[in-house]
């Protein structure tokens, strides 16, 4: 492959490693957060309700928190925050870092084209993840667990 070899050398290896890591976070961060949200939220609701370990006041508790509190905070809000972070990363990488560069070198530099495809995938996956977690969050606010 032509030209970019030289420009590659400019960057320290650490920055490139970090860059590759950030890229993969922008691609897979949101969907991973969703997967964790799903397993945690479903798992705690189904299993806690089956076992129904009730705390003071007859409420079902998980790790000392109310079930609803646990599902809302630990299983939903935190993954949502991660997914949003990943969404922002993919959005910024696409619109600022790569898009401009891409326009100048379009077609000649498969590496950048490939990177653009990856952030586009990441952007889409992140949008889906945020939507799914948010939908789940809506239900957590609306439904009381174990009914």
């Amino acid at each position, binding site marked *: 492959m032509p030209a970019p070899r030289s420009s590659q050398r400019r960057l320290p290896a650490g920055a490139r490693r*970090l860059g*590759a890591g*950030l890229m993969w976070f922008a691609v897979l961060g949101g969907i991973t957060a969703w997967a964790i949200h799903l397993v945690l939220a479903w798992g705690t609701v189904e299993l806690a309700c089956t*076992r129904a370990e009730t705390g003071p006041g007859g409420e079902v508790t998980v790790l000392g928190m109310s079930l609803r509190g646990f599902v809302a905070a630990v299983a939903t809000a935190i993954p949502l925050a991660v997914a949003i972070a990943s969404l922002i990363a993919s959005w910024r*990488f696409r619109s600022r870092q*790569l898009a401009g*560069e891409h326009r100048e070198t379009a077609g000649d530099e498969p590496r950048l084209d490939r*990177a653009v495809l990856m952030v586009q995938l990441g952007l889409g996956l992140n949008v889906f993840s945020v939507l799914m977690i948010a939908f789940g969050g809506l239900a957590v606010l609306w439904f009381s667990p174990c009914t």
Partner: protein
Amino acid sequence: MNAVDMRSVSRATEPEALATERPRGRTPAWWGMVLLITTEVVLFAVLLASYFFVQFTTEGPWPPGGIRTPELRLPLIMTVLLLSSSAPMAWADRAIRRGYQGQLAAGLALALLLGAAFLTLQGIEYDTKLAEFTWTSYAYGSLFYAITGFHGFHVAAGLFMIGFTLVGTLRGRYTYERHERVRQVAFYWHAIDGLWILILSSLYLSPHV
């Protein structure tokens, strides 16, 4: 965050850095083994998930039916043996990449020995356990023996692979230029070790919490 860090972050978001190709340069065999290990890890994850699912849907004490909480002394010795076998394996792998066939043979032999010791102890553990409960003693017994037995089977398979590689080594088949097999076997072995830690913490440690 200090200024230097900021600079390295902003550098890392330069197009060149983001477009760094990673992973790359792996061999097809490397990918094959990684994917095989992935599917095996999922297999064990599902088994352990089943274990916890049954635990949480079971009323009363866990383990159920008067089965005692597993003792830790023997499993911990087994853990030490198995984990320490990863070191000679890694050492052997490094050695052959530099072309040292003798070190490769020694490393493999040591790993083989440690793994075999693990299996022997597992046999001893089964002997005492089976006197207390069997695979037909509640779902707990079924899960306990299925998970540990399946892992033991993997250890045995790993030992067979190490032995097979050792024979090849003694025949001089692994060289500076051709040593992919060693690397794959090492990977598999490390994965089995890692899985054991999951099993130890789920089946042996978690009931003590």
